[in-house]
């Protein structure tokens, strides 16, 4: 709005008002990122008496050969994309469902549907851990009474069930975000569009798929980008339910890096993994934002 008041050449290079933010971020984010790059080329174990020494790309070579790293990468992908996809679909269904009712009466229902969002991640984790208990857990009790399973299931102690079970808890906390986001996007569709589609006899599914979904596209893309990033970083839910186990069945990259850095104090190796991960995440974000612009 104020652009063009001065020719571009006369614009100052920096504004002092951004300096506090830039300064703080340079120290708490910029410096750690650079330091991570430096650490990733060092052998640095916090517990060993000898100082850090430069070892070039050896950490990265170790990483390529590390089976647990690849498993953690796969787990991260399944956990992240699986949960986001499920939560987005559920949120979409909920938003479409609630939209069909008159809104004033639905205010309380809306609020109730949002409550899982207000539960801290750690609490969600312990709550589901309690409900998943093999003996005395409510999930098994319900399934046994309904005759769906014949013996109690070890949800979190079974290598093939643990990851999906944690994902269910994750979807539970994440669905309200998509529900709210998509409800807002639905409310933003111009009335004329809906009316003219109705005149053209669009009903039910054809109304949803043909008319409404295109309007939700950018909300879905932005929302899932944000949730993918936050799931890539999710530590609390996994750590407080399974600590990455059994074995490495639910070990994602965050959990593995945390283990390496704060249980083994292998700061160098953990940093190399951090760098690889950083590149993956940035690559994903850039590709995603490109897709968003191609509307």
């Amino acid at each position: 709005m104020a652009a063009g008041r001065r020719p571009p050449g006369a614009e100052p290079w920096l504004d002092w008002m951004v300096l506090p933010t830039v300064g703080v971020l340079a120290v708490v984010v910029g410096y750690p990122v650079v330091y991570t790059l430096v650490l990733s080329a060092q052998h640095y174990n916090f517990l060993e008496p000898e100082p850090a020494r430069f070892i070039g790309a050896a950490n990265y070579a170790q990483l390529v050969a590390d089976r647990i790293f690849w498993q953690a990468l796969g787990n991260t992908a399944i956990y992240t994309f699986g949960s986001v996809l499920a939560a987005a679909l559920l949120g979409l269904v909920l938003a479409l469902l609630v939209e069909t009712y008159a809104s004033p009466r639905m205010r309380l229902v809306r609020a109730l549907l949002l409550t899982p969002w207000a539960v801290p991640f750690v609490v969600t984790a312990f709550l589901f851990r309690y409900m998943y208990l093999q003996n005395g857990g409510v999930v098994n009790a319900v399934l046994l009474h309904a005759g769906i399973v014949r013996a109690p299931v070890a949800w979190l102690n079974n290598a093939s069930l643990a990851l999906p079970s944690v994902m269910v808890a994750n979807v539970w906390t994440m669905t309200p975000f998509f529900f709210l986001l998509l409800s807002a996007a639905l409310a933003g569709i111009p009335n004329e569009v809906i009316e003219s589609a109705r005149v053209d006899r669009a009903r039910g599914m054809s109304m949803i798929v043909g008319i409404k979904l295109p309007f939700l596209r950018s909300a879905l893309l932005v929302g899932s980008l944000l949730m993918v990033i936050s799931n890539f970083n999710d530590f609390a839910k996994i750590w407080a339910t399974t600590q990455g186990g059994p074995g490495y069945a639910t070990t994602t990259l965050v959990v593995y890096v945390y283990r390496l850095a704060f249980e083994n104090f292998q700061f160098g190796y953990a940093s190399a993994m951090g760098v690889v991960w950083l590149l993956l995440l940035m690559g994903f974000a850039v590709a995603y934002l490109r897709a968003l612009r191609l509307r």
Partner: protein
Amino acid sequence: MRASRIVQAIALGLALAWSLAPIYWMLATSFKNELEASALDPTLWPHAATLDNYRGLVGGTLPFPTFFVNTVVTCLATAAVAVAIALPAAYALSRARFRSRGAVAYGILVSRMLPLVVLLAPLYLLLLHAHLLDSNLGLVVGFTTFGLPFAVWMLKTFIDAVPIEIEESARVDGYPRWQILLRVVVPLILPGVLTTATFVFMDAWNNLIFPLSFMTTLEKQTLPAALVVSFTGQFKTDWGGMMAAATVTTLPLMVAFFAVQRSMVRGLTAGAVAGV
């Protein structure tokens, strides 16, 4: 038409049950005694309702009131610090024209998307050398890494919505920019400032990895970390006590959440479309 209405009502009922059942289970369990909470055949509601679990939080071996205070203090401090530092930056990014503006805005956005764990080891060493490990101040520094970039972007969207003409008369009177920001703009976007602060507060409240990594003295822990630590100790089999602690950890976040519920989407997507 009527059949589809019934299907819709059933679907809505299922959705409500799915959303609320776990929360109900947490509350119900927090009022059960130890025996009932770990019964092999769980009871649907507390048959011998008791407040002992909540009493145990105050008088138990672990100082839960201290954990509560620690969490409230560090999260409030983070919200205040992040908003105070972010305000001038958001104002400048919204109003001022300077050549590095695009780069600064983009840099702040990227720092918001960085994986926290990448920062973990260097941040630990940074705090170690600054003698800030195991201190509330150090924890606030850690929380600021994600609170600050977020606050800048969210405040910017609120300032963008204020018509620039409102500032003109103050500008004509010769007020410096920081006074215009404090006297004219901030009062207009006060709800936005509070919303932003609440978001930062909630994000800090949810954070587990920083207190777990940076705090070594048990008495200095935050609630989420204390839940994890106590689970290996006090609450090993005491699910009633655990759920009471979980309820106490949830309440402040629940209050904060419903205070800003309306601007939730706007807040979380602030800057996501990079409208520089």
